[in-house]
């Protein structure tokens, strides 16, 4: 089981003082797990860059707790913050390469802060740049490199010390699709190899599929925190279910985000025949036996769903569902289900079709 590398609790941040004091971040509570690539989106001024700079130890934590690699950042003095930054790789939107230095010298700059021999410095920097496809450009200055090459040098500089945390601000903004995806792909590989966290602030929808999580920030708050893989799987289940036919991918994603994982042991009853309908279920793992009046009538497996009829009709449950083995199910509560239904004008008709098919 993955453990959190970054844990943020009740984090608030303010700019200015006195009457001019302006709150930028509100009650941020979140964890970033090792090996995760997190994409952070949100409109300008939503606080995502501020959060990035706090995690990067570029600002002082004012209220709340920010723990990075088991170290509490709150209360660190300037000297300790400077030290903390040495374990973080930064990638900037405008690369921020040193114009006067060659690609390899740029990559070697953060290496000055670690204890490398001259030979190690050269070999490591060369190796990193070579892996990024810049073996032939080691001694080129930034002005002689293309935008993509410059950004790859910036990535090389960020990862050369093998930091556990890499913070990137719009790293693909100036890149074409192919290079942009290559850049994020490299970062994802680095996150997995180092068992670290890559946190990317971006508005670039071309690279969203690389993310393990997508966090959306609005007005200094986390508006959504979506586990992408699970979300995609859920959306596929939802699409397959035909219950939500006609909903847009965004609406489906919204439903998926609201679903919760529930675990059931063998022979554990999930719903009872005759009770009020409270939840809609989709099976992620395991099997579920459907019984009517005590007799099994069907067995449902991965991707199958149940519990929708009582929610739509308002009638009592017409069957009992029991976990056949250890099972994981995604559940959607009644309110969320009704809202999704309201969003889909053709839902009643579609449900009738479903009922008809079952009948």
């Amino acid at each position, binding site marked *: 089981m993955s453990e959190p590398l970054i844990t943020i609790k009740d984090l608030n941040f303010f700019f200015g003082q006195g009457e001019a004091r302006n709150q930028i971040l509100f009650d941020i509570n979140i964890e970033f797990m090792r090996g995760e690539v997190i994409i952070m989106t949100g409109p300008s001024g939503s606080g995502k*860059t501020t959060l*990035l*700079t706090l995690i*990067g130890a*570029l*600002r002082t934590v004012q209220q709340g707790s920010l723990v990075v690699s088991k170290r509490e950042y709150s209360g660190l003095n300037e*000297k300790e913050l*400077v*030290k*903390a*930054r*040495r374990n*973080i790789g*930064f990638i*900037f*939107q405008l690369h*921020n390469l*040193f*114009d*006067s*230095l060659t690609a390899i*010298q740029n990559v070697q*700059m*953060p290496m*000055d*802060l670690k204890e490398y021999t001259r030979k190690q410095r050269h070999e490591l920097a060369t190796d990193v740049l070579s892996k990024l496809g810049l073996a032939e450009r080691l001694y080129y*200055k930034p002005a002689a490199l293309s935008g993509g090459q410059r950004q790859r040098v910036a990535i090389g500089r960020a990862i050369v010390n093998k930091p556990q945390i890499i913070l990137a*601000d719009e790293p693909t903004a100036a890149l074409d699709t192919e290079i942009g995806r290559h850049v994020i792909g490299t970062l994802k590989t680095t996150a997995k190899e180092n068992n670290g966290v890559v946190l990317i602030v971006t508005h670039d929808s071309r690279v969203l599929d690389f993310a393990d999580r997508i966090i959306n920030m609005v007005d200094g708050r986390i508006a959504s925190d979506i586990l992408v893989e699970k979300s995609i799987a859920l959306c596929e289940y939802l699409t397959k279910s035909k219950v939500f036919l006609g909903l847009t991918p965004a609406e489906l994603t919204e439903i998926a985000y609201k679903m919760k994982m529930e675990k059931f042991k063998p022979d554990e009853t999930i719903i009872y025949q005759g009770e009020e309908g409270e939840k809609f279920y989709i099976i992620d793992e395991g099997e579920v036996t459907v019984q009517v009046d005590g007799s099994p009538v069907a067995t449902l497996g991965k991707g199958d769903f149940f519990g929708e009829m009582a929610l739509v009709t308002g009638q009592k449950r017409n069957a009992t569902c029991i976990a056949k083995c250890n099972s994981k199910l995604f559940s959607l509560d009644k309110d969320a289900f009704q809202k999704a239904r309201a969003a889909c004008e053709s839902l009643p008709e579609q449900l009738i079709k479903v009922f008809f098919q079952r009948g």
Partner: protein
Amino acid sequence: MLHPLAVMNIVHNKSRSLSSIVGISFVIMIIFYQMGAYSKVISASMQVYNELEFDIIVLSNDYFHMGQSFTFPRQRLYQISDISGVETAVPFYIALSPWRNSLNGIIRPILVMAMPINNQGSQVFSSNEIRESLPLIIQPNTLLFDRRSRKFYGPQTPGTTAEIAGNEFKILGNYTMGGAFISTGTTIVSDQNFQRIFFRSLDNVSFGLIRLKNSAHADVVAEKMRQILEEDVLVLTRTELEQREKSYWATTSSVGLLLGSGVIVVFLVGIVILSQVLATQVMNHITEYATLKAFGYSSLHLANIVLQQAFAFVIISYVIGFGLAVGFYKLTSMLAGVPIGMTTYRAIAVALMTIFMGTTASITSLRKVLLADPADVF
């Protein structure tokens, strides 16, 4: 070891760095030049005295400097000639007189020096060339002419004539001395000829040049003289004279004050220029410094880079400024006839001043770097 960023930031933007280096070099060259001129004024105050042989000098109590030396009664020299330790007491005459160029008739003031041409008087000058030529100018209306006199005085060749204060004089020999800041030309005549030029009694002496016996101590003898002599004269040892002259030219004369304050002004201007140059350099790279802070570079690391960059500028500029100053010294020596040369003392002094300027300017620039917010690079 030099940080590559400090070096490469200078090398990378050549034109910008070059203009900065030219600015700083110019300041350093001006400091060198001002200091050279200043020290020349001071050292030149002794230029003529250095050609004279004496251990103690007797001067008028009204004496300011060689150009305003006034006179005192020759009687004072007789009073002290019998003091134990005194070997000779020779009267020396000095005054400025109009000199007419025999070719174009243009009149310029010239410094006229004179002494009795006898056994004692002939030993007054340390130059053998002068000593050997002195017998030539016993004759009326004859003189020796200084080769370092400016060209506008006319022909210097022995045998040619010139006019001093309306009297025609014949040049019978040359010597090398220079009038420093007192006069652009000098000439040596006998005391008799001096009297002819100025219609001045030889009883009014400009200087009394006292030579002591080998065993005598100048301070002791000078003290004895002060006790004997009236208050209308000053008795100074050679060292005391040198201190007095230098002090006058350094702290009292307008030229000394001008050049001395010039050094201070240029030094201050240098700090301002250097601060501007370094501040511009730092501001041009402020994002880079903020980026370094984001990487975890400490203030000490950054200070090291900024100081290295500043001192690389300063060292390169110093070398260029030094070279330019040597060139200008030569040019000035050639054009103005005032020999100024580079000295180790001055090279070290300006180097120290440059280091001070660099440090002061760096501190100002460093403040900007240390205030750079790494969060701003996002």
